């Protein structure tokens, strides 16, 4: 049999850095990914889709947010969608999952709230052992029960869980921590995991699918944007896992040290090359340092900040190139006069005093450069 493994849809996620134009686009694309997953499953002949938790980003979504993914899945009645609660949308009493049940789910959408095995497909060739979370942080391994839980003889056992197979630092010691060899211990043909947003193979039978639509700049693993097509030929057979891209946006981090005009050109080329066909699918978080002369600063503003900023879906910039005014720069203000005198004052201020004051003075000098040039209709 074939199934499609996905997780961490995080429907309703809010991106703080995104402005009012970008946010709805990013949120909408997460919903669109569901359709792409469904179509992928169909195309690949998968009978069911297992979603390993964190369907929703918030424990208390709005009614519209609650229903939107259901409506997307409703479009695929030929697929069985198996859902479990993750740490973001854990099964709180009187919570999200009860609301969802009250909306009246169609039969092909199956939320697994209890730790009890259930048939994965209509024929019952495979059974799912779901380990959804009842709390945001569960002490102990939520998959431990799988070891002693029987399924019909000859059925393929598929584990479905949400959590981490290793601990990350001291902040959350052991929370939702899963045994890294649960598949072996519990005799699972395949353990479909969620929680990590980058796809990751733990062992031949244990995989993280990652989020289908990237939602961060550092997802780890294979990055986000994939779904896993899993082929299971029998209870003992090793699963065949193929990663398929389903995401649309590409998120990238970049760093640059700018000291001259060439650096600017190189940076621009690098960032445009992330997706040469459609830069509007790219989100970049750029960290900049270095120092430029006045004219190069103008170039930075024009090519990177304004130019790339418009081309890319999002260009987030940390830091800014500093100002290193040259004597040529000052000559641009003319040989004398009040403006030249002011520029010299600002250039001096940009080179002394505390960091903040220097940055302000540099910016003021840059502004003066632009104003003087605009006013004069070209520098003298």
């Amino acid at each position, binding site marked *: 049999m074939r199934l499609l493994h996905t997780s961490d849809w995080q429907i309703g996620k809010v991106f703080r850095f995104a402005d009012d134009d970008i946010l709805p686009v990013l949120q909408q694309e997460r919903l669109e990914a569901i359709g792409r997953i469904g179509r992928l499953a169909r195309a690949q002949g998968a009978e069911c889709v297992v979603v390993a938790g964190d369907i929703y980003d918030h424990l*208390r*979504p709005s009614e519209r947010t609650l229903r939107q993914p259901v409506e997307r899945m409703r479009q695929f009645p030929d697929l069985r969608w198996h859902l479990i609660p993750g740490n973001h949308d854990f099964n709180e009493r009187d919570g999200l999952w009860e609301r969802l049940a009250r909306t009246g789910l169609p039969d092909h959408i199956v939320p697994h709230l209890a730790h009890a095995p259930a048939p994965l497909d209509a024929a019952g060739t495979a059974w799912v052992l779901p380990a959804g979370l009842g709390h945001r942080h569960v002490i102990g391994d939520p998959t431990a029960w799988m070891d002693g839980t029987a399924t019909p003889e000859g059925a393929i056992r598929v584990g479905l869980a949400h959590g981490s197979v290793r601990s990350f630092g001291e902040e959350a010691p052991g929370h939702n921590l899963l045994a890294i060899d649960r598949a072996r211990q519990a005799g699972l043909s395949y353990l479909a995991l969620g929680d990590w947003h980058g796809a990751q193979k733990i062992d031949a039978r244990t995989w993280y699918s990652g989020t289908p639509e990237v939602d961060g700049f550092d997802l780890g693993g294979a990055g986000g944007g994939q779904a896993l097509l899993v082929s299971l030929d029998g209870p003992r057979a090793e699963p065949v896992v193929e990663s398929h891209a389903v995401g649309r946006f590409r998120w990238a981090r970049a760093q640059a040290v700018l000291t001259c005009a060439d650096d600017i050109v190189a940076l621009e080329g690098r960032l445009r090359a992330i997706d040469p066909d459609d830069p509007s699918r790219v989100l970049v978080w750029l960290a900049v340092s270095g120092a430029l002369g006045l004219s190069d600063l103008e170039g930075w503003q024009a090519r990177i900040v304004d130019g790339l900023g418009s081309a890319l879906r999002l260009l987030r910039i940390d830091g800014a190139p500093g100002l290193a005014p040259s004597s040529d720069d000052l000559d641009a203000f003319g040989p004398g*006069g*009040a403006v030249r005198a002011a520029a010299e004052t600002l250039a001096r201020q940009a080179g002394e005093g505390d960091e903040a004051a220097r940055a*302000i003075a540099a910016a003021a000098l840059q502004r003066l450069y632009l*104003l003087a040039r605009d*006013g004069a209709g070209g520098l003298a």
Partner: protein
Amino acid sequence: MTGGMILRGLEVEQVRRFGDAVRLTGLGPGINLLGAPNEFGKSTLLAALRAVFLLPHGSKARPIADLQPYGGRGAPRIVVDFTLDGGDWRLEKRFMRRAFARLEGGGERLDGDAAEARLQDLLGVEAGKRGAEAMGLLNALWVTQGQSLVQPDLSDPARATIRSCLEADLDAMTGGDAAGRVLSRVTADLAVLLDGRGNPRGRFRAAKEGEQEAAAELARLETRRQGLEDDLNAMADLRRRLAHEDDADRREKERANLAEAGRVRDRLRDYDARYRAARAVRDHAAAQLAAVRQDLAGRAAWERDLAAGTARVAELEAALQAAQGAHDAAGAAHAARLEAVRVADAGRQAARRALDLAAGRVERARLVRERREAAAALDRLDEAARAVTQAAAELDACTIDDARMGAIRKAERALDAARAASRAQATTLDVTLADGARGRLVLDGQALESGRIVVTDNAVLRIEGIGTIRIEPASHGRDALRADLAGAEEVLRRALAVAGCADIAGAEAALAARRQAELAFQAARTVLGGLLAGADQVPATAMEAARRRLADLDVRIARIGEADDGTDDPLAVLEAARKAMEAAEARYDAAHRALLAPDETMRRAAEDLARLRAEWQVARDGAAQLARDLEAARAVEADEALSARLAAGHEAAERAEQALVRIEETRPEGTEALADAAIQRLERTIQDGHARLAALRQEMAAREARIRAAEGDGLDERIAAQERLRAAHAAEDAACVREVAILQCLRDAVAAAERAATERYLAPLARAIQPALGALFPRAVATVEADFSISALSRRIDEPFVNLSDGTREQIAVLARLGLADLMQARGRPAMLVLDDALTYADSGRLDRMFDILTEAAGRLQILILTCRTELFTGLGARRLAVEPVGGEAAEGH
């Protein structure tokens, strides 16, 4: 004078008071003075000058409207001839109706807007907006009346003009304009973010407010989420409690406990009923037994009482007989004493009668004696009264008394006095009769004898044989004297008549007789007074009283009756009778006392008898009743039957007691109150359980409704969205803060640079002003600001312009204009100074120095002075101007 601007002539028509065309004549280089009184039109000429040079011909602005002739609409026409940089120009403009402009000079002639444009070019001014004055430095140099105190108010073009003048001097100095532009642009950009007070506005303010609003909304949402968490926790707790309450086993056990408690209470109630019944039986038996005992005791008491009663009756009968005997004896004794009393009383009556008789006799004798004395007293009184009456009659017969005698004597003395007076005045005739002559001499018919005759009145003396002599005494008041004499005689005669006397001697005798009669009357009255009872008693009354007493005594004597032949002494008889009476009284008292003593014995005997009789009857009746009752009781129940009943009662009481003891032995544990309390408690537990269950379900329903409502809102999602919004606003705020900092930094830098530059290029202006200033205020230095105003004057100390005196401020204002004009002149710009009513505050010393300064400047530029105080400016050596009708007579202002 080289180059510069020289006004040659000014012609106006239809301008305010100048209806017909007039021309200002005499204009030339140097100082020009138009001295004219107020209302002459000096300011009108200045306004016309400004209008023709600075206002476009098509303007209908206020300054133009103000130029129209008084009381009517006209079309002001102004013509000016001037020299500029050696070339002659003629400028003519008409305003309002059929407006036009024409500029001729330098071999060209321009009309309308072309003329205006050329003019502005010549003057170096910018066209004003919408028909207002063109703006340039000339405005500042042509000072109208009342503005001479303030420094020139420089418009932007004026400042630009000055700046261009200054910059032309300093080739190296460029970018002043650029700095100004940058500054105004930066200021404008700042104004978008900050208001006049430096507070955020526009998007800056929106960012701050948005952040606050988002934070507030976030707080509200967090509160709601906390509420939802609370509801969810409460819901879980409610579920636990519901499960506990709803436990079927527990409820079944509670019901069983209740049933058992009910059974315990039923057993207790049953025992109680039986115990009560047995105790009632026992109590009844005991009561029966007590009744029998009581009956027995009652019957024994009856028998005792009967025996005692019978004995008592016999005792009383014996006492009764003894009492009767005593009573009879007492009655006999009493009768004997009564008789003794009656006899004694009869004796006492007889003695009384004898005593009364004796007393009567004694009284009669006394009364007879009294009557005799009374009759004698009446006789004496009568006699005395008669004597008094007789004496009074004698006294009344006397006609004279002391008063009348006094009157007679007084009249006599008066007569004597009158006679003496008459004689004293009378004529005295001493008659000596010759022998034989007697009788022959007759006076008033009366023959005279020898001797002295006094003639008091007219008299006729007849001498016989001779004739008569009439004598008239020549005395004064002879008639009065005569009347007095006659009066006195009459008085005496009348007094005597009253006294009933013939003469005075008789009167004296009569008075002596009266004295005797008075003495007799007094003696009689004294006798009578001694007989009367009081001094005020009238004799008649006394006599009447005496008579009445006599009659009374007669009556009393008659009443006593005739006296018996009383030979015995009545008093002795009376004494004997009184003694007999006393003896009889003593006897009666003794008998009476004897009667009273036996009365007490009698009464006591009667009481005893009655009491004993009553007691006897009661005792007898009681005994009889007791005997009857006893008989009746025995008839009902014989003594034997009563004894049998006592034995039966004893037995019944014993049985009932034993039955009660047996029942008590079956008493169950606990009390009914405890059992009831247990039942109530259990029932309450069950009821409360129901109520708690209902309350829990109700609360759960309410919580659930709230939870659903909150969940439907998508709180978490909204909080995330709100956090994003707040972050966005915060970022925007930070960007604005940064932008403001950048702009302020830039502004400060540019402003500082511009100030520094200005100070450098202001030096020529300061230099231009300084010579004149030094001349006026030795060693003083003016502080020139970037806007070309003079802000302070430094002599020994800095003095702000506004603190200077009016005169000093005015002089500095003039010097500033002079300096600016000099500056323009030096740069080849058209310059010309007009002072309207200026320098009126200057003292003579300053004025002289100002004249020197103006005269010196007039070598370089034309100066036009308009004043109404021509005398002040006589020392100036100025050109005198006049206003003349065009083609008419001169009308010099002075």
